[in-house]
């Protein structure tokens, strides 16, 4: 049985965590742990893919006698689980392969090795769980294991704070999910997903559960305004773990959302789509704007994760809206686009984090203002990172473009929706999506251009060396996945089809049977895209151009000093910096998004002080939402402090009053 096989692998991962504890500081321990993780994830990946492609009938849940005594723990693999298992374990396998090389640079392997397999096991268990109890336990286990990895380098400044905020937000998210499942299980307390699915839920209750699930899973996925922990925590972990947290763990959160809203809650109301869509488009644009302003390479990537989560939630919101109005075909298209983006993002975000990790080990720098010119010192990493940048900027023929294209096609079908609220918001969401895509291209031109191009801005960047071959192998694997998913999107869409069919009742028309492997999402509109042909055309015309130019044009080449309009400056500080690159965009969007203000301080003539340019930016989410909450909590704590200095009579009367109040509640409650 597939569940049994996967659970055995998960148990082996947990055992491996124990091995990590014992073997932590011995030489070869990290090689052992990571290669075992690679093998185990490979097995789970194979099982998941076979389930997804072969799609045999539904499999009964496997109940294990662990957990609560009268419930046990149920585990099951359906199409949705199989898809997410594939996403998780492909990312995990690539990360383990990368870590075989990267892990050698770890100063304290004992702080990473035990938690890494545990983290992988936790993520797998979340998607395998078939009842609310084991789901929540696995969810919390995953959060705690990743928290331990975030604070692995706890001596570095800010990492402890990042860990604290992460822990706080993770517990808050779990609390919301706990409440959501409590409402779903109802007074009878039937926590199995099968029972929840079969039960009827009142409309107000379903709406409340949706909001709780949106907050609960959104806080893990990084939806604005719950994203604050993400850009702190993801970069703090070692790079292969950052890749897993950004590329894979946020997808587990997406899984949780899809499981609750599409699978367990039944028929949605139309406003659900509106809420999810609105939050998603806000997240996409704000995420990428934040990313554009970052100097820390890993934090930039983390903010870009926020953006991509927004894109995924735009797709999910559209799918909910279509499903609510009974338009199954567009709903299938939108959900396919969202899930395709889940897959894509797990590929290219892991790739980019691996690249950042390679830069970090080679130079010791995460600040891109101190990098530059790495393309000459690490040409292969530069090539791989460039591939990731192209993919995430949604450029054909790579994979990021396909999912955004599908999303645009879904948006074009939304005038059929009857609700005015949706009719007026969806065009705006489409514009936000297009804006996010364009800004993300700018963001990655900046990230790649400042880090890898130009002249080195520090001694460390000047002395960088190419990273080890195993790390590069992990990156090559992911880039190949990006390319394959980009040029053969039909195969991916067909693999997602059973998942989509289970959630919205209809799947997209089969794509692999189309001529030339084009994808045609909606037959009537005849809109089509063919990644394979675009790729071959580009290759063909590049080769043709190279051939013609090299045959007929002069082949002479001379190296000389840069021209730079005749005034080349030898100092590398005269180059454009990351901040100056982002300045025009900050000026256009920053005044609204960050209340950015620039102030130039010019000393009067004769004064020897240097002129200063000061830029002030505000994090609006923090100021508007979190700072007041912090203030109220502080205020409440101060007021409640009085309760610590009461006499015993007062305490007794308080206990008595509480008892009366509870009894009254029981008496009045229907």
């Amino acid at each position, binding site marked *: 049985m597939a569940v049994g096989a996967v659970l055995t692998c998960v148990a082996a991962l947990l055992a491996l965590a124990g091995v990590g504890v014992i073997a932590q500081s011995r030489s070869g321990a990290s090689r052992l742990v990571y290669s075992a993780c690679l093998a185990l994830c490979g097995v789970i990946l194979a099982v998941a893919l076979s389930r997804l492609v072969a799609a045999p009938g539904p499999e009964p849940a496997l109940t294990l006698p662990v957990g609560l005594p009268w419930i046990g723990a149920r585990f099951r693999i359906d199409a949705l689980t199989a898809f997410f298992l594939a996403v998780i374990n492909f990312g995990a396998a690539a990360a383990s392969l990368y870590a075989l090389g990267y892990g050698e640079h770890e100063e304290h392997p004992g702080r990473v090795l035990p938690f890494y397999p545990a983290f992988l096991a936790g993520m797998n268990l979340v998607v395998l769980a078939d009842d609310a109890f084991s789901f929540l336990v696995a969810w919390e286990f995953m959060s705690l294991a990743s928290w331990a990895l975030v604070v692995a380098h706890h001596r570095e400044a800010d990492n402890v704070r990042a860990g604290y905020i992460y822990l706080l937000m993770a517990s808050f998210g779990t609390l919301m999910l706990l409440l959501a499942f409590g409402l779903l299980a109802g007074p009878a307390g039937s926590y199995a997903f099968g029972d929840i699915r079969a039960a009827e839920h009142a409309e107000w209750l379903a709406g409340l559960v949706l909001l709780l699930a949106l907050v609960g899973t959104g806080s893990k996925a990084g939806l604005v305004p719950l994203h604050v922990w993400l850009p702190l925590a993801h970069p703090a972990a070692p790079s292969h773990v950052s890749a897993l947290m950004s590329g894979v763990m946020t997808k587990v959160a997406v899984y949780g959302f899809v499981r609750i809203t599409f699978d367990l809650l039944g028929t949605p109301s139309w406003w659900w789509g509106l809420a999810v869509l609105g939050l998603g488009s806000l997240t996409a644009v704000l995420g990428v704007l934040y990313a554009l302003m970052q100097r820390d390479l890993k934090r930039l990537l983390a903010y870009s994760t926020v953006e991509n989560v927004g894109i995924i939630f735009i797709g999910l919101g559209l799918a909910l809206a279509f499903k609510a109005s009974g338009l199954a075909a567009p709903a299938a298209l939108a959900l396919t686009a969202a899930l395709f983006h889940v897959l894509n993002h797990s590929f290219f975000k892991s790739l980019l984090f691996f690249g950042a990790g390679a830069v970090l080990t080679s130079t010791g720098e995460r600040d891109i203002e101190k990098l530059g010119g790495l393309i000459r010192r690490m040409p292969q990493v530069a090539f791989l990172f460039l591939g990731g940048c192209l993919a995430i900027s949604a450029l054909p023929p790579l994979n990021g473009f396909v999912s955004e*294209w599908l999303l645009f096609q879904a948006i074009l079908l939304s005038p059929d929706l009857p609700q005015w609220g949706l009719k007026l918001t969806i065009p705006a969401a*489409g514009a936000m999506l297009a804006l996010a*895509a364009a800004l993300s291209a700018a963001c990655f*031109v900046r990230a790649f251009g400042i880090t890898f191009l130009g002249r080195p801005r520090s001694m460390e960047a000047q002395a960088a060396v190419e990273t080890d071959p195993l790390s590069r192998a992990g990156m090559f694997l992911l880039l190949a996945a990006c390319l394959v998913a980009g040029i053969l999107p039909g195969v991916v869409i067909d693999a997602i089809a059973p998942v989509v069919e289970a959630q919205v009742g209809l799947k997209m028309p089969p794509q692999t049977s189309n001529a030339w492997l084009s994808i045609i999402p909606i037959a009537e509109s005849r809109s089509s895209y063919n990644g394979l042909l675009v790729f071959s055309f580009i290759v063909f015309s590049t080769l043709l151009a190279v051939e013609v130019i090299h045959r007929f044009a002069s082949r002479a080449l001379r190296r000389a000093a*840069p021209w*730079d309009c005749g005034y080349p400056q030898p100092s590398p500080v005269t180059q454009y910096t990351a901040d100056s690159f982002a300045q025009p*965009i900050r000026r256009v969007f920053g005044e609204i998004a960050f209340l950015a203000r620039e102030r130039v301080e010019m000393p009067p003539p004769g004064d020897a002080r240097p002129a200063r340019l000061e830029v002030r930016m505000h994090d609006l989410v923090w100021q508007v939402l979190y700072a007041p909450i912090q203030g109220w909590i502080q205020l409440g704590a101060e007021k409640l402090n009085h309760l610590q200095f009461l006499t015993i009579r007062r305490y007794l009367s308080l206990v008595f009053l509480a008892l009366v109040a509870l009894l009254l509640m029981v008496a009045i409650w229907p």
Partner: protein
Amino acid sequence: MAVILDLAVQGAQMALVLLLAPLLVGFIRRIKARMLRRRGPPLLQPYRDLLRLCRKEVVLAENASWLFRTAPYMIFAATWVAAALVPTFATGLHFSWTADLIAITALLGSARLFLALVGMDVGTSFGGIGSSREMMFSSIAEPAMIMIVFTIALVAGSTQLSTIADTMLTADVGLRVSLGLALVGLIIVAIAENARIPVDNPATHLELTMVHEAMVLEYSGRHLAVIELAAALKLLLYISIIACVFVPWGLATNGSGIPAHALGLATYICKLAVGGFLLALFETSIAKMRVFRVPEFLGAGLMLGLLGTLLLFVSRSF
């Protein structure tokens, strides 16, 4: 037979756009010169320039990377593929279903991304200024283009350019507010994307306001020739898109014979000439705007596209 004709049409199209692009540039320069009471260069001057550049040696900056040497070909290939997929004189292009209007926009985005990257490769401040501004412009121009594509696609029911052209050829589309908005928006985007006045000045050098020229400043010889050809192709492509969506008359439809194709070709060249003339007229009658006025100009394009889409979401009859 039909397949052979289709393939021939596709091949002819690829060669045609490549051959016509420098001519269009030469034509526009000539018209602009005439309007300024100058004689202007001969029509074929851009071809001569390209040949001259091809014959010269490449002077490469000492620290230029592999990306700097390969990017011109990538830029050219992406632009050429995009230009080859726009119906110019016939709608029945054999491979037009390979990529729709959104994909064509994204292909141009790839070309722009490479251009912006090579601007930063040598590490000069001019290159950086060009790349930074180009990405700022594109961050508004690209969503504007997507919203315009939405407007057109909602009217035509498809994002496929040949299908759109076929729909526009039928009489029942008529005059629509949304299409008018889309046309104005598309012209704004086209001007910005092709680095024309008032956004950028293709004739300027050594000026702090330049954008496109700043990025390619370090290029010389055959690399520069390829990039210039790509820029000319891009201009041709935008005029072709406008022609095929808004004035599709004369396009040879799918399966029509050789006379129809000849007619299509003749009308296409007329459309290009008219488009080039109007562009030259516009450029000579307006001054270049400050860099930070450009986002407002492009923002107008974005708002027009969004308004067009919104109108169509409200009612399909707008």
